[in-house]
């Protein structure tokens, strides 16, 4: 059997894969977000309320967390549709901060003192199931009709629209589903961390998710897996060098971006075709 430390690490790895896939999906349509932490927070708090106060089974809490985050994702998505690139990143960043500050001040769920005493419901099994479902989803979407539409929108919105693609529908569904995934990640996180407060879902969380996806590569969902593995496990492996580990980690990122700007996995499309 795995010892507790390793099991916990694998659970965090799985949660990071879920969060990375929550950004990978909208990113495949060119929608970059620095606010996935906000959707994660909504999922975490909603699932916490559902298990701690309402007492529903974990599966129901997961679904509820996903739906709640997805709904907020759709609402945020509407204004976000008109903009893209760096402006969308700023908008989502603002959104993430709004959510964080909301939960910081929302007394019913503990406000600044956080929401504790959650049951440990996120086992390795549950995480594995969610990760597998989302991976199957991501792989299936690639090369499908909707997958091509996402790619077309990422490459050139105007042309995609002139070729008959309903931009609003494609972008909104990608953004909304990404929010659902982030909500699931938040629910899994809450029931493994057992204590949540607003600070855990702030800008740094969003930036970490962004980093995982960029590091792994946007070209394929496997990039999200590899990126999550590196970001979750490498700092642990670097523990022997203690206070230098984050410096080392940061340097690795810099080197990575110089040598493989398209990410660890998602080889640049050119290379994929030309072998």
């Amino acid at each position, binding site marked *: 059997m795995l010892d507790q430390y390793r099991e916990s690490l694998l659970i965090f790895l799985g949660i990071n894969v879920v969060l990375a896939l929550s950004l990978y999906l909208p990113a495949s349509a060119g929608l970059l977000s620095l606010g996935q932490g906000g959707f994660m927070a909504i999922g975490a708090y909603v699932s916490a309320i559902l298990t701690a106060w309402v007492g529903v089974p974990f599966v129901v809490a997961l679904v509820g967390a996903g739906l709640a985050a997805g709904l907020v994702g759709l609402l945020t998505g509407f204004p976000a549709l008109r903009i893209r690139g760096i402006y969308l990143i700023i908008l989502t960043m603002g959104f993430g901060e709004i959510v964080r500050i909301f939960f910081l001040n929302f007394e019913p769920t503990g406000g600044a003192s956080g929401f504790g005493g959650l049951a440990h419901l996120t086992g390795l099994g549950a995480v594995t199931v969610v990760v597998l479902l989302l991976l199957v989803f991501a792989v299936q979407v690639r090369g499908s*009709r*909707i997958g091509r539409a996402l790619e077309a929108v990422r490459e050139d919105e105007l042309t995609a629209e*002139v070729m*008959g693609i309903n931009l609003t529908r494609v972008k909104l*569904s990608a953004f909304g589903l990404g929010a659902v995934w982030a909500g699931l990640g938040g629910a899994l996180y809450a029931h493994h961390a057992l204590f949540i407060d607003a600070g855990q879902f702030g800008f740094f969380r969003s930036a970490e998710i962004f980093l995982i996806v960029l590091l792994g590569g946007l070209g394929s969902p496997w990039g999200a897996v590899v990126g999550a593995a590196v970001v979750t496990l490498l700092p642990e492996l670097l523990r022997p060098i203690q206070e230098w580990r984050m410096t080392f980690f940061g340097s690795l990122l810099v080197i990575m971006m110089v040598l493989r700007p398209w990410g660890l996995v998602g080889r640049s499309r050119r290379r994929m075709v030309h072998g």
Partner: protein
Amino acid sequence: MLEIRRVRKQFGGFTAVDDVDVTVEVGTIHALIGPNGAGKTTVFNLVTGVLPPTSGRIAFRGTDVTGWRPDRITGLGVARTFQNIRLFREMTAVENAMVARHCRTRGGFLRALARLPWREPVSERETRRRAEELLEVVGLSGRRDALAEDLSLVEQRRLELARALAVEPALLLLDEPAAGMTPPEIRELNRLIRKIRETGVTVLLTEHHMSLVMEVSDVVTVLSYGRKIAEGPPAAVRRHPRVLEAYLGPGA
């Protein structure tokens, strides 16, 4: 097929298209010509919904499409190519054509999820077959797995054509399809445009190569500074005094 009625497009104080009327008849090859900046591409952008007109109406097959979203107009059967080629550069040739099948096929995330990994679904196979057929039509079969950005300029223009045909348009808008082509390539394009018309597609094109315009079109509309200055069969239009003036200057 297409009725443009007193359509005007202003950008700030600049009138790019000034109360233009054009009627494109079913089954014709209709050319829209004029000096640079005459408003030809703006007309294309208005017809395809990329830009909303400031005033005027545009009707396609009797349906008023003024102010419609581009994808809805495309769904009705209007397809176009771009003067400054706008392919999906990181997609292969066949994928570019497959994207344009979007409005003729169904299926979102759920359909994608229900696919079996070892068997391409019938609808997907059909989409690929249609796309490959069209690459064949434009002579790009051998390049179907090349990335769009790796194609030569002429190949890219042909791919734009194949992609537009994948929409199954009733009206095809070609924005300077011969730009950058050599005379033999233009002759080939000429044959291709006629072949497309024979399949029942109405063609509206802008072009600077007058030889192509004169040979291929049934009707020519001439724009200058956003206004229509002449219209008629190519032989008549080329002798029209206002056309000569617009192209060569006064006194020509």
